[in-house]
């Protein structure tokens, strides 16, 4: 039966004849025998698509947490938002899916214009003038922001609020091994960054999260003030859905905005592919990481789009490039443009508002339960953390039996103690509500949690 190779035996024979050789193996003859694979790959033989589908059916049924089977109250940077059939259909158009990076603009206007529209939306939601064409995810976008900051300031010290998602901080720490950046994490008190506890002098960047990963809305004026005072870049990691109603990073005075764009049309996808949002001020444009699309004209003066400021990029600048990124997450960027086009100005506001309404409704219900305390007294937006009378992972497991994914264990997120939480992190549950959650689902959640705690 077929795989995806077109050549028939006759094709192969006549092609070999054309080359004047005997066998396919002759094409590999110049590879030293000593290292050639004697007995082929140690893998099973090929199977037909339906046979492979049967194997995958086993995997999917073992994924008990799928949002189609469990009501999702987990967030922490990955959100269960509505994605309509129209957005799926358009973003699956094979012209978008099976194209390469638009290196030949004459036949890539579809992707280029879609990215240009995406860039416009990122600029508007971030309140910053210069977006890029996407990065891998929010965590790696933060790393690029730190690299930009050290490029701009010539300094290595990165002052990072521990309100920034624990995984993002972890990724920043990992890449600091290469860049030599010194990552200083600022603790939270009552869910708010205790900037005063840290000396920011010589900082290249001051990094805040908005809302922070525990859901809390921090007033960013203090952080901005510190950044300005020490000539550091002010980097804000913001929830782009919140940007539909809350102040933008730009309005808070950010020099760089990073964020996770998964919320815009990309399914939960077990964490990837997601979408790293990035934008900065005009002042930093020459340090922009990755690709950017610009408007221009063709030889008949028709509007056209093209990837531009290429001189920053690795293929031209090589070791002096602003970043090593090449393949990015274009398809997710195109999807975000489509999803935002579907939501529109007021749809995005409506989604943001409903998230906040649902989260606050659930929060109030939960505080009425014994064994549940708010982790912070501060305002929050669409998610919040509570301290439970039992370990969060036990509660999550118990509630899963009633098909509720209760949220995320902050202990698991932080892999142990973390400056963002005073005291034991393992009892802390991070709970999220999106516009898809109904009142019945929320009320059910409350009952199921009550049981789980009293068991």
């Amino acid at each position, binding site marked *: 039966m077929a795989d995806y190779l077109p050549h028939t035996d006759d094709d192969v024979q006549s092609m070999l004849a054309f080359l004047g050789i005997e066998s396919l193996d002759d094409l590999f003859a110049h590879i030293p025998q000593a290292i050639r694979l004697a007995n082929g790959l140690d893998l099973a033989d090929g199977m037909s698509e339906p046979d492979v589908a049967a194997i995958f059916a086993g995997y999917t049924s073992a994924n008990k947490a799928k949002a189609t089977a469990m009501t999702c109250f987990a967030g922490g940077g990955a959100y269960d938002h509505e994605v309509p059939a129209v957005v799926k259909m358009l973003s699956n158009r094979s012209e978008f899916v099976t194209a*390469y990076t638009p290196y030949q603009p004459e036949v890539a206007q579809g992707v280029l214009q879609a990215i*240009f529209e995406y860039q416009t939306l990122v600029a508007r939601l971030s309140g910053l003038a210069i977006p890029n064409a996407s990065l891998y995810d929010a965590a790696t976008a933060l790393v690029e922001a730190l690299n930009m900051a050290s490029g701009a300031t010539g300094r290595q010290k990165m002052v990072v609020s521990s309100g920034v998602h624990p995984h993002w901080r972890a990724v920043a720490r990992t890449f600091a091994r290469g860049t030599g950046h010194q990552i200083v994490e600022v603790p939270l008190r009552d869910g708010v960054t205790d900037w005063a506890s840290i000396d920011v002098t010589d900082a290249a960047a001051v990094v805040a999260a908005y809302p922070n990963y525990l859901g809390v809305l921090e007033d960013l004026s203090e952080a901005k003030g510190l950044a300005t005072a020490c000539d550091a870049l002010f980097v804000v990691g913001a929830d782009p859905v919140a940007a539909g109603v809350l102040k933008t990073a730009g309005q808070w005075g950010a020099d760089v905005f990073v964020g996770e764009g998964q919320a815009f049309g990309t399914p939960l996808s077990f964490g990837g592919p997601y979408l790293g949002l990035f934008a900065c001020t005009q002042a930093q444009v020459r340090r922009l990481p990755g690709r950017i699309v610009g408007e221009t004209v063709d030889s008949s003066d028709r509007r056209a789009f093209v990837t531009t400021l290429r001189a920053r990029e690795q293929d031209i600048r090589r070791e002096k490039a602003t970043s090593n990124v090449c393949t990015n997450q274009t398809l997710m960027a195109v999807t975000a443009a489509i999803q935002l086009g579907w939501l529109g100005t007021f749809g995005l506001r409506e989604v943001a508002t409903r998230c906040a309404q649902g989260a606050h409704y659930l929060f109030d219900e939960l505080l009425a339960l014994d064994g549940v305390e708010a982790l912070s007294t501060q305002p929050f937006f669409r998610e919040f953390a509570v301290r439970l009378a039992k370990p969060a992972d036990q509660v999550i497991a118990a509630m899963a039996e009633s098909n509720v994914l209760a949220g995320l264990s902050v202990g698991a997120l932080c892999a142990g103690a973390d400056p963002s939480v005073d005291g034991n992190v393992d009892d802390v549950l991070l709970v999220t509500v999106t516009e898809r959650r109904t009142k019945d689902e929320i009320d059910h959640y409350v009952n199921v949690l009550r049981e789980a705690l009293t068991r």
Partner: protein
Amino acid sequence: MNSVPQPGGRAASAPLMGHETEPTLFEMSVANRSAYQLRTTGVPASALSELVPAAHLNTEIVPVAEVSERDLVAHFTRLSHRQFSVDLGMYPLGSCTMKYNPKFCDAIASDPGLNAVHPGAPASLSQGWLEILVTLEEKLCAVTGMSAATLQPAAGAAGELTGLLLMRAYHESNGDDRRRVLIPDSAHGTNPASVTLGGYEVTTVPSNDRGLVDLEALKGALGSDVAGIMLTNPNTVGLFEEEITGIAKAVHDVGGLLYYDGANLNAILGAVRPGDMGFDIVHMNLHKTFATPHGGGGPGAGPVAVAAHLVDFLPGPKATRVGDGYFNWVAPSRSIGRVHGWHGNALVLARALAYIDVHGGDGLTRVAQHAVLNANWLRHRLRAILPAAYDRVCMHECTLTATPLKNKYGVRGLDVAKALLEEGFHSPTVYFPLIVEEALMFEPTETESVQTLESLAQALERIAQRAKDDPDSLRRAPQSTPVSRVDEARAARQLIATADSARSS
């Protein structure tokens, strides 16, 4: 609105109907038009101002777009008609492995049983996913001849940097502080860029006149301060580094490590493994070798596989088989930490596993054989008009040069590439690798039939003829495409990166 409104979009912007430009989403917007529909939740609709302090609320409304669902569909469908893709025709971009992407793998990736799973769900509730990750890791190790792998890197470049950080961690663990990483002059730009981010200096090693690393020059560049070397094999010219074992020995002798840039892995599947060549670290571009569609520039996935002595340093937590049939997240003992916000580009990883399972060991071996066969057939078929930069058996891609056309008729490689677009083919990679002048690098891949290769050859023959008869027409090409040659200089001179950017002209 006045009674003669602004005109809206229409299919004249699709090549089907002509060559008008498509208005932007923003030009199509009309106040208060909308498309979104949300479920009825019954949640109390308290005013936002009651939930969030005024200090945080944006007093302005951020404009997104205001279009109907119908216009949204028309707009993006028309844009798709202005976009070339693998599904429309041959895409012989060298180094990019633009093979056919099986729709079966798309279907796997769009199953809610995979794509509706939250990445933070406990292992006990996402066993299927963990098994997919563990199984893929095992199979990628079998393909590369390595001991273990991380699946976190989101693309090749991320894999490179991860690999360099592993190199660094390894040396540091030996209390051994090294400064330089060697890279051949034919290397892809991401290699040197990654080296810098890895905290190393680049030392460039020249290629010899056979297009291969100059072993003597390499030895000359080696020293106890060399952390390692990054190689692509077959290299970016499409040639196999025949002296690889000698190179490996030389580098290892000074205590350096060998890094394998797997962008060209498609050439050697089942024939030879990086591990057996002596490499310590290998990244793979699943979006190339394992057929994930490129999505107009991404997403990809760049898993990194390593030899035994580096396993403990791998990023984590890693999906791990813990006792019979159960899987959990485990951090390697001396892990360098996370390199991705979650677990990597999971859906791309699932696609790759499905692709590997359909092909199996036998199929993957045939993939490489037919990819190499196609490249050599094309090289030989075109020798009269576009000679190979190094005229001997190549691997999965052939680097040809337009220098003869340039010298005779002043037609550059770029002109040939643009003219090819008019002929219904995507152009090859131009001006890369840098060591070949007027380089046209063709990678036909194994999924193109010999009939399609012949069409390509005939198109290039027509172009060569035009170079003789009417070279100017080539410098003006392409004309039949949605837009003609684009003014790149102007785009860079006056940056217009958003619909809100000031437009001077």
